């Protein structure tokens, strides 16, 4: 079991190095990249099965005492989210291999290895048991994302990249200052040990640390009012890269928030989180309505959906945390598929702007189906996975009688459906404008089939989550119980 934990981090890192060495040979490079990503995803799935049966697996790197060294903790929460995230990256890489010979493809020599480094960072962020390694994992993810976003060096990318890099760098610096505060107050950066000692601190210090990390993780997660960098920067990157960012990056911020704030018991911050959650949902959904480009609409929806997860966390009840975890699992694949479909639209029509495309439903009905399923799921309509996730979060809100945030969640759901309808009307119905033939990127059938196959895999993935919603809900409930009883977590890490 402990070998599986380290494989999820090390396999992609080793393959990133090999991929860079083999970068001139496209087949070897793609092969190595896929092997690394699949090895990581496979170990994550094996970990989920193992941990669900046998309980938490703790790995002490270099056998150091948890007070001093790095610990990797594969508890149920981590291994529930990890396989979903890593499988998404595999699917996106397959899509990227298909897309690469088109005008919309990213530079293949860099993206494969960088995606591997990002994957290693994602695994580390989910599995780490101490705050400083979480900082390092964030940096691994961010540095590779900076390069992925700007490596083509186009004007729009540099403009958006600047905002993105500066905002995230500021959040990282605040993270470091926060680490100094935690270390000064508790004498450790291990999450379990810090959780134990933070609860004994005076209220002012304790809540100060909680609020500080709310700002840090809130910037990474694009929570209102710290979201403005996201809708501007994501749409400028190549589709495959945006799909990975959309599916994973902000969710890691929310993941860190759920773990840190639940284990350290920051219930007093709950009301603040609920207000922020309501504002995030509504403003994200309204922002999406105002857009006229598929990728920009979808980017605003990332912000809006973060609100639901923050709402589940802010309730600080067992049902709320369960809902937040289930929402996290549902949201990652759905958002990725929508961006992949955005890439397919761009490939067919030469643009993702609503005003200039149209009539895709008759010409490519398959793409219309691939869009409709995750779009309805995102809006939370039954029987898709979004319904189960939203139902879990909203019913937890009703049980807690938090009327304001429940109303906000329902309104945001309606607005989401409205802007999905807007994409449907603009892209799939109507007629295409005449100048499209000039800009549409010619794609060979083989490449297009590969992109379609990858998207279909991802759609099947989201449907699988729908079918397994019952089991996933039970597992989320167990994971939430584990988070809300930190004594068990602390004992598992320190013993």
């Amino acid at each position, binding site marked *: 079991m402990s070998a599986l934990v380290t494989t999820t981090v090390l396999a992609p890192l080793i393959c990133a190095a090999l991929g860079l060495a083999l970068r001139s040979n496209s087949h070897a490079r793609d092969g190595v990249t896929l092997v690394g990503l699949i090895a990581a995803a496979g170990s994550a799935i094996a970990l989920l099965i193992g941990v669900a049966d046998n309980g938490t697996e703790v790995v002490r790197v270099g056998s150091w005492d948890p007070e001093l060294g790095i610990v990797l903790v594969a508890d149920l929460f981590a291994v529930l989210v990890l396989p979903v995230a890593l499988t998404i990256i595999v699917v996106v890489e397959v899509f990227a291999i298909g897309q690469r010979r088109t005008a919309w493809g990213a530079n293949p020599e860099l993206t494969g290895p960088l995606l591997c480094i990002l994957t290693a960072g994602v695994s580390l962020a989910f599995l780490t048991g101490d705050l400083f390694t979480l900082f390092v994992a964030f940096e691994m993810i961010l540095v590779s994302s900076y*390069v992925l976003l700007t490596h083509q060096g186009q004007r729009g990318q540099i403009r958006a990249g600047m905002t993105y890099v*500066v905002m995230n760098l500021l959040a990282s*610096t605040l993270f470091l200052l926060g*680490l100094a*505060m935690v*270390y000064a107050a508790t004498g450790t950066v291990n999450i379990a040990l810090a959780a134990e000692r933070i609860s004994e601190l005076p209220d002012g210090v304790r809540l100060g640390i909680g609020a500080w990390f709310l700002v840090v993780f809130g910037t990474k997660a694009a929570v209102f009012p710290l979201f403005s960098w996201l809708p501007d920067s994501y749409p400028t990157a190549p589709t495959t890269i945006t799909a990975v960012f959309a599916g994973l990056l902000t969710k890691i911020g929310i993941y860190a928030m759920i773990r840190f704030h639940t284990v350290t018991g920051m219930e007093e911050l709950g009301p603040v989180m609920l207000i922020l959650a309501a504002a995030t949902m509504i403003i994200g959904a309204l922002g999406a309505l105002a857009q006229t480009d598929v990728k920009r609409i979808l980017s605003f929806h990332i912000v809006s959906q973060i609100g639901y997860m923050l709402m589940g966390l802010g309730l600080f009840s067992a049902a709320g945390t369960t809902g937040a975890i289930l929402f996290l699992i549902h949201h990652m694949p759905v958002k990725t598929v929508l961006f992949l479909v955005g890439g397919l639209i761009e490939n067919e029509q030469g643009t993702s702007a609503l005003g200039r495309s149209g009539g895709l439903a008759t010409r490519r009905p398959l793409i219309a189906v691939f869009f409709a399923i995750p779009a309805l799921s995102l809006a939370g309509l039954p029987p898709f996975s979004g319904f189960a996730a939203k139902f879990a979060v909203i019913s937890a809100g009703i049980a807690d009688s938090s009327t304001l945030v429940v109303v906000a969640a329902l309104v945001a759901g309606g607005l989401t459906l409205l802007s999905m309808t807007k994409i449907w009307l603009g892209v799939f119905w109507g007629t295409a404008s005449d100048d499209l033939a000039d800009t549409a990127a010619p794609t060979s059938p083989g490449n297009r089939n590969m992109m379609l196959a990858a998207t279909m895999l991802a759609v099947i993935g989201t449907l699988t989550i729908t079918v397994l919603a019952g089991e996933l809900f039970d597992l989320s409930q167990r994971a939430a119980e584990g988070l809300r009883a930190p004594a068990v977590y602390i004992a598992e890490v320190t013993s």
Partner: protein
Amino acid sequence: MSATLLILIGGLTSTGLYLITARSLSRIILGFALLGHAAVLALLSSGGDPGVAPIVGEVGDSSNPVPQALALTAIVISFGLTLFLLALAGRQQALSGNDLVEDDLEDRRIADETENGGDA
């Protein structure tokens, strides 16, 4: 924690934050360099009172090595990121002749619409 360190951290943080609000990327980079130093100093001072080098065999109270290890990692990361920001500024210079951070799309769209509204 000594008052000198405290004042130094505060001064570095405020100067760094002031520089980050600037429009030119070269000032922002300098701001991040200062903020990075502030964070590293804060990490170092979180380790408690200074002492002799924490090496086996040294006599006396040693200083805490853990924050030093953390600070070292942070320095390496912020060094790498400063280089990346410089490359970004260089690219912006090559593209537009200056290294200013441009308005985002939404700002420009709103500005355009208010201008058009004024004409009509």
